């Protein structure tokens, strides 16, 4: 990592910050450990060796996948969480926006919540009284300002919450993915506020909105499994991050989870055939999370064309062959190969296995032997998004079996350009409309003309 030199004196400075969440979550023993200030011995390492300097006028964006430690880093920067190692020094006043409307109580009015929230952000009575009209104007929610917050829409809630944050006296704004709310006009307002704020303070924020990172940040830091992988100019850091995400590689995390993936067009230009459902397929992700009792390993999964070669591009609606190969580590009497096709939320969309086809004549594999299973199916039309294939090898029957080897995300598929407008999958639909005359309705063929999608 290469921490870029800050322009001026650092308002906030992190040196070698690491965080280990204790393995034992609570209880008397934990309390004793904290009170006697014994260091943590074991636990989950979520942050490791992070350096960061933030000077006035600077905006630093943190990018990385879910679980990469971004939010933990922000909490440490704000002083809510104690780092396990390293030091945090802060000379400025921090306003933390880790959750929009944190501390809002639904049964109280917008005005009452604003007053308390402003006090929480450190404003005194005079300042609150003076800013209240400005906050109300910024939030722009009209008469709802004096209605209980429980009656608000989520958009109104966000506007009000952000309005408070925008009017507190802070040197450093720490923002966790909260600006992606509200309508376009409000977003513009937020962005303008950020730019204005940067003339007097500094911003540290986490966002999945690449455009926001690019337009606001002077620097970006990419965290991967708690460690800074890259730091520097946002364009460069984002390029590398995007590249890693597309490969699905990185540090053994195959696929980002819901809401995590930045927008990217792997199929840009050349293949934007209208009406087609272009699907990009990642290489086999050997490092994807897997489990099983070790009776076998799967060492390659691919979509293959008629010649058996790996396909990097598929089309929804066409017949595809999912091929997986592997090796038995012991004698397997009744192995079953299968797969589950999932969407980015981890929902199972469809899947199949070899059980029924080979039920009466199971193929046994000897220890050390290689095997290959091919499952051919019609790829459905898919909406834009990210999907994954989880291949598995089990032994036994469908109902009673042991997992030999199960991979979570062996292949990641990206759909960009889809005819599907409603729902989770698309089905070719023939469409016909007609004005019906009275008597001859029954006589007509139901489908007179076809228009294929």
């Amino acid at each position: 990592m290469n921490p870029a030199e800050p322009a001026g004196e650092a308002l906030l400075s992190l040196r070698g910050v690491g965080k280990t969440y204790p393995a034992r979550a609570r209880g008397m023993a934990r309390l004793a450990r904290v009170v006697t200030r014994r260091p943590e011995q074991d636990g989950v390492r979520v942050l490791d060796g992070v350096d960061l300097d933030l000077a006035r006028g600077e905006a630093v964006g943190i990018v990385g996948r879910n679980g990469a430690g971004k939010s933990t880093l922000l909490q440490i920067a704000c002083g809510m969480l104690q780092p396990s190692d390293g030091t945090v020094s802060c000379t400025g006043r921090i306003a933390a926006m880790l959750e929009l409307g944190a501390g809002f109580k639904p049964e109280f009015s917008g005005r009452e919540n604003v007053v308390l929230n402003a006090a929480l952000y450190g404003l005194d009575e005079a300042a609150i009284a003076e800013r209240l009209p400005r906050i109300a104007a910024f939030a722009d929610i009209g008469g709802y300002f004096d209605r209980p917050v429980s009656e608000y829409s989520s958009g109104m809630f966000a506007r009000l919450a952000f309005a408070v944050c925008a009017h507190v006296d802070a040197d450093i704004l720490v923002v966790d993915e909260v600006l992606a709310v509200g309508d376009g006009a409000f977003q513009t307002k937020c962005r303008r506020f950020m730019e204005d704020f940067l003339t007097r303070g500094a911003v540290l924020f986490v966002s999945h909105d690449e455009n926001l990172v690019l337009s606001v940040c002077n620097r970006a830091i990419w965290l991967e499994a708690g460690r800074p992988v890259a730091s520097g100019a946002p364009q460069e850091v984002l390029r590398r991050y995007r590249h890693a995400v597309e490969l699905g590689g990185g540090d053994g995390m195959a696929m980002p989870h819901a809401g995590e993936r930045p927008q990217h067009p792997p199929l840009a230009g050349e293949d934007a055939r209208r009406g087609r459902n272009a699907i990009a397929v990642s290489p086999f992700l050997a490092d994807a999370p897997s489990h099983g009792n070790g009776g076998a390993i799967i060492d390659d999964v691919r979509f293959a064309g008629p010649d058996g070669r790996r396909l990097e591009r598929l089309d929804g609606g066409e017949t595809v062959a999912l091929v997986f190969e592997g090796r038995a580590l012991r004698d397997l009497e009744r192995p079953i190969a299968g797969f589950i096709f999932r969407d980015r939320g981890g929902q199972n969309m469809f899947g199949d296995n070899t059980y029924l086809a080979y039920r009466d004549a199971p193929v046994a594999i000897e220890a050390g032997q290689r095997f290959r299973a091919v499952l051919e199916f019609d790829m459905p039309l898919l909406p834009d998004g990210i999907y994954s294939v989880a291949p598995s090898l089990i032994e036994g029957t469908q109902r009673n079996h042991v997992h030999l080897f199960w991979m979570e995300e062996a292949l990641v598929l990206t759909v960009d350009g889809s005819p599907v407008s409603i729902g989770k999958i698309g089905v070719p639909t023939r469409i016909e409309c007609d004005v019906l005359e009275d008597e001859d309705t029954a006589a007509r063929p139901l489908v007179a003309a076809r228009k294929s999608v």
Partner: protein
Amino acid sequence: MGGGIGLQAFWRPLETLLRNGQLYRRVLVRDIQSTFRGSALGLAWIVVIPLVLVAIYTFVFGMVLSSTFSIGTRTRIEVPLLFFTGLTVFGFFMEVVGRSPNFIRENAVYVKKIVFPLEILPWVLIGTALFKFAINFALLLVFLAVFTGGVPAGALMLPLVLVPFLLMTAGLSWLLAAVGTYVRDLPHAIQALAPIIMFISPIFYSVQQVPAPFATLYYANPLTFVLESVRGLLFFDTAPSAAGLLVFAAASLLVFAAGYAFFQRARPGFADVV
């Protein structure tokens, strides 16, 4: 705690209250409002609840069990007032002690999402309970004036008892809040203990009615001293001894400072466990 108790250890818990005065007031008002917002009777519940309790206890202890305070109760009305006094003091203590173990977790947002002086949260509990206490105590003085023809001059000595009592309760609140944040059994344990504490505290009887070997033991319960002193001052023209006041004040200050120090010590780990 933390390398001996210097004078600072007593000052720090007050200093944070002064430093965060405006914020404290806002959070306190919010806490009081939260309790009653949306209920039809609103703040009236503060008075209604103890009055109903007094009625019930007067019926059970006064009429069914016909127990009386051993020393010179003069009018019939004094028994319910004595119960009311005891319940008001006990109510203050139990409200703080009962709410403390869960209070940090209930306000997890102050731990994890906002930079907040967590150490004032027990002060919030004290403030809310004190607000209710003050209303009930004012009511008590009014009753006393109406039914006995005046408030005794001894009432002026009440702060000597009540201020240390408040500090001790605050100290316990810090301790229980810190432990309860880590140990989830504590709120349940306190809930189970509450009726026990109520009956082993001299609320419906005087410590003088307690058989000899136990009476001394009773003074291990800090509520005993408070209850006896308050009732003595208001009803029986007896003042607590100077030695008693001194010991109680010293013990209270110790609990106050130690509770706070313990809370501050345990606090860095809160974010990991809430």
